[in-house]
């Protein structure tokens, strides 16, 4: 879908060029922040501790504003509110399923109404180019909420012909209070991926937003109140992982936790569930996704798509195609063209429509990525372009490409989450499948080839939750997304996404 948004109206163009400016409104580069507190029971609260934390504009390094810092005590309040809202007989429990859907639809409408403002705020807080926030992030949010609005009254149990004089059926019930911890790379979109299914199925929510990017989610909270969700159904707590996040993961009254973030923290979430109340856990974690380019691929398309696959969103995608395997006979040409493309990538002020790449989200990520670049040089990969900071202010990094990468190098095994591309060489299909699968991760993959047999052969062999064929980062809210192995547990989106938020109750009744 990311791809689709670009390629439908703007064929083959990943740069938002001057001719498309007319469809994107000029941004206010200093959008006001209206909401910077904790959202519980449709009201705004200071932190119990009165603590606050700063959120930074990564393009400049400056503080945007301070936000209430939620901790265990605030999570406690939020969970209580969510629990009350979930009580039998509450307005939320008594609501027609179709009405839950209507509320989600209205939320989508409000977000669409405030699209320009939300895109501005997203860019300010996260650093992604405004043109992308406006034409990709916000529209995808709206589509996600509308999609799940449609599911609310269609999620059906079954009547089942069991043996004996019994009438048997199942009910699809909500789980209860769901903790949701979302990351900073697509703040609005990750919020929508979580809220859509959890609310369609009738649960209540305690959501912790990333400390790097709390602002847009809090604004959406105000819209949740505006459209009429009952108090306590959605509660949002900005705060840190080790405090607020951990409090949610180990809370005895939270029935389920959904986490999107690093594999490292995913382990912690699962441990916390096991030592507390065995709450259901779904995880969307990291990846080191293989992007396999065969010699018969359309070279131009493969180069452009592979570039997009790695560099999109400043390289900050869980599914970034960060191991580009290129078949021997086209390797040299592919590297040369990729380098040429990377050198043309425009890095700069995210509010400028010509910018393709903004800053990394914060100082920590910035340093981490530079660290990986160093390791690449140290371990003998060939630096083809880039390799350092791109500006004096803010967290900008030059689009960087390493060639002659070997599978055992750090940059080939660990998730960099930055604009650093690894290009590796392979000979045969069997070899590349094995090398591609040789990773603890299994989130996504791609195959570029014109041959239908090879496409199926490779894609069926890859242990990855999404395998793109002749494209990359194509998302549809209708299609499930998630990881094999340490890339995660469960699937989000599509009808499959509803399973994560459902308890199935089987009810056999005796007939006489």
């Amino acid at each position: 879908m990311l791809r689709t948004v670009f390629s439908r109206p703007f064929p083959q163009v990943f740069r938002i060029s001057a001719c498309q400016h007319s469809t994107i409104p000029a941004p206010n580069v200093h959008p006001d922040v209206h909401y910077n507190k904790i959202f519980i029971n449709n009201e705004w609260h200071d932190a119990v501790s009165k603590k606050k934390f700063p959120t930074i504009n990564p393009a400049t390094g400056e503080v945007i504003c301070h936000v209430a810092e939620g901790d265990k005590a605030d999570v406690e309040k939020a969970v209580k509110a969510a629990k009350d809202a979930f009580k039998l007989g509450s307005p939320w429990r008594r609501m027609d399923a179709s009405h839950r859907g209507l509320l989600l639809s209205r939320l989508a409408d409000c977000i669409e109404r405030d699209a320009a403002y939300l895109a501005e705020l997203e860019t300010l807080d996260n650093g992604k180019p405004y043109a992308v926030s406006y034409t990709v992030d916000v529209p995808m949010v709206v589509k996600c909420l509308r999609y799940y609005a449609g599911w609310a009254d269609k999620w059906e149990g079954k009547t089942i012909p069991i043996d004996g004089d019994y009438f048997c059926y199942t009910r699809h019930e909500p789980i209860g209070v769901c903790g949701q911890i979302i990351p900073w790379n697509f703040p609005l979109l990750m919020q929508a991926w979580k809220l859509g299914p959890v609310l369609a199925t009738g649960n209540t929510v305690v959501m912790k937003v990333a400390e790097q990017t709390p602002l847009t989610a809090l604004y959406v909270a105000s819209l949740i109140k505006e459209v009429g969700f009952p108090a306590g159904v959605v509660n949002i707590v900005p705060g840190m992982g080790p405090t607020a996040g951990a409090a949610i993961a180990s809370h005895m009254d939270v029935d389920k936790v959904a986490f999107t973030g690093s594999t490292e923290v995913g382990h912690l979430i699962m441990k916390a569930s096991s030592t507390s109340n065995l709450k259901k856990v779904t995880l969307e974690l990291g990846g080191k996704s293989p992007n396999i380019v065969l010699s018969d691929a359309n070279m131009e398309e493969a180069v452009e798509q592979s570039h997009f696959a790695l560099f999109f969103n400043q390289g900050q995608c869980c599914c970034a195609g960060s191991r580009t395997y290129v078949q021997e006979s086209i390797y040299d040409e592919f590297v040369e063209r990729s380098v040429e493309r990377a050198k043309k990538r425009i890095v700069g002020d995210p509010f400028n429509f010509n910018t393709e790449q903004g800053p990394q989200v914060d100082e920590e990520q910035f340093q981490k990525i530079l660290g990986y670049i160093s390791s690449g040089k140290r371990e003998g990969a060939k630096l083809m372009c880039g390799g350092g900071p791109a500006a004096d202010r803010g967290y900008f990094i030059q689009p960087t490409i390493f060639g002659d990468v070997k599978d055992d190098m750090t940059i080939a095994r660990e998730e960099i989450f930055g604009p650093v591309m690894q290009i590796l060489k392979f000979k045969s299909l069997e070899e590349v499948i094995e090398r591609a699968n040789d990773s603890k991760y299994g989130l996504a993959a791609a195959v570029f080839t014109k041959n239908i047999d090879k496409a199926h052969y490779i894609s069926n062999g890859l242990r990855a939750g999404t395998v793109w064929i002749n494209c990359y980062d194509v998302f549809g809210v209708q299609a499930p997304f998630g990881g094999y192995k340490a890339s995660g547990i469960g699937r989000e989106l599509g009808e499959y996404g509803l399973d994560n938020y459902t308890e199935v109750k089987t009810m056999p009744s005796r007939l006489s």
Partner: protein
Amino acid sequence: MAKKCLPLNIPHVSEPLEGIFINNEWHDSVSGKVFSTYNPATGEKICDVQEADKADVDKAVQAARLAFSLGSVWRKMDASERGRLLFKLANLVERDSAYLATLESLDTGKPFLSSFFVDLQGTIKTFRYFAGWADKIHGSTIPTDGEYFTLTRHEPIGVCGQIVPWNFPLVMTAWKLGPALSCGNTVVLKPAEQTPLTCLYIGALIKEAGFPPGVVNILPGYGPTAGAAIASHMGIDKVAFTGSTEVGKLIQEAAGKSNLKRVTLELGGKNPNIIFADADFELAVEQAHQGVFFNSGQCCTAGSRIFVEEPIYEEFVRRSVERAQRRTVGNPFDPTTEQGPQVSAEQQSRVLELIQSGITEGAKLECGGKAPPSKGFFVEPTVFSDVQDHMRIAKEEIFGPVQQIMKFKTIEEVIERANNTEYGLAAAVFTTDLNKAMNVSAALQAGTVWINCYNALSCQCPFGGFKMSGNGRELGEIGLKEYTEVKTITMKMSGKKS
């Protein structure tokens, strides 16, 4: 002319309501003919409407076929966008709901409060429900034997003919358009000649919502001409009809004689409402009353055979008569009116004729029985007791405000008598005993069985008839099947993997 009669401030409608809607444009009939539509509360003409016949159907089919061709805007549209258009349509209906409710009451005679709170809400909710399905219609990938990759696509059927009745014009239009458009078909729709106006207004909203031209075409006209042309058209891939069983048979025959188009039918009913002695008495009396009298008795689901268990029979009759005598009949725009007129003079005569047969055949007329002395096509709320199963009023669909109350002794007996009909649309059971409820509902040959309620219909639930009450189901996920053609695609693969 229509606007003078309306009690509300009606927004100006720039498109004529009286044309034929093809390719998002308003056309006159090819023949030049028009027909009149009447206000059944007064008997007066509302306006003339262009009368579609075979030549107009040909034009509409051509437009619908083109809109369905490979590569058309409609065929290339994202499924989610089809859903979006349906949702917009629902919003537009909601925007204009006061106007539409007024027009519906004017053309059908149903009480305005009913039109506004029941018909309009039902219409809006149905469009929204099917809007949600558009991008959730899944095919499968299938673990077939051999070195093959098999998948199914759930494709639209093509050009769908839809013929809707006069008892719930707007709601029936939504029940038809919702699934057809959600699945990606194109439509040629004929509203009933008694009640074309609200359906034509939907045409204007379809255009406003942004549906591509040719996707929906609306042809007001008569059954034997326009309807028959649709049923036997070689260029129509499927026909859906809601109306009488008598005409349903003709539709099926026409389909068989022409191109074997797929057929779904929602026809009549003579629905049994079974009241056990252990039922909640007050609830049963009121529900049985509403169940048969709602919409002046003009419901395919009317509970027109009320079987009451012997011990409570006398009291039940007495209370039902009392309730019927209290039923207010009058001007549909009077907020205290519960019952408006029958839809036409023809329907009124038919109902009165059947009432006469009840009297002649020996049923006991407890109250009502005739037309009140006023303009319009009204019939008094009528109750018959001591009705025997062989009487015409116990066998034939009356489609009027006439309640038949019968007595029964045992469960086995009432199940047999309830099922002893060529119809099988709906039924109801009133009892507080769980076992009775489950056993009786399992035994009844009816597409919908209500337990301790009546006419509880919602767009999420499949609806349709057993036996001669129809073929296929509308609404719910299952309703989508009728507008889908499944294509299996099997591809040779090398190197099978589980």
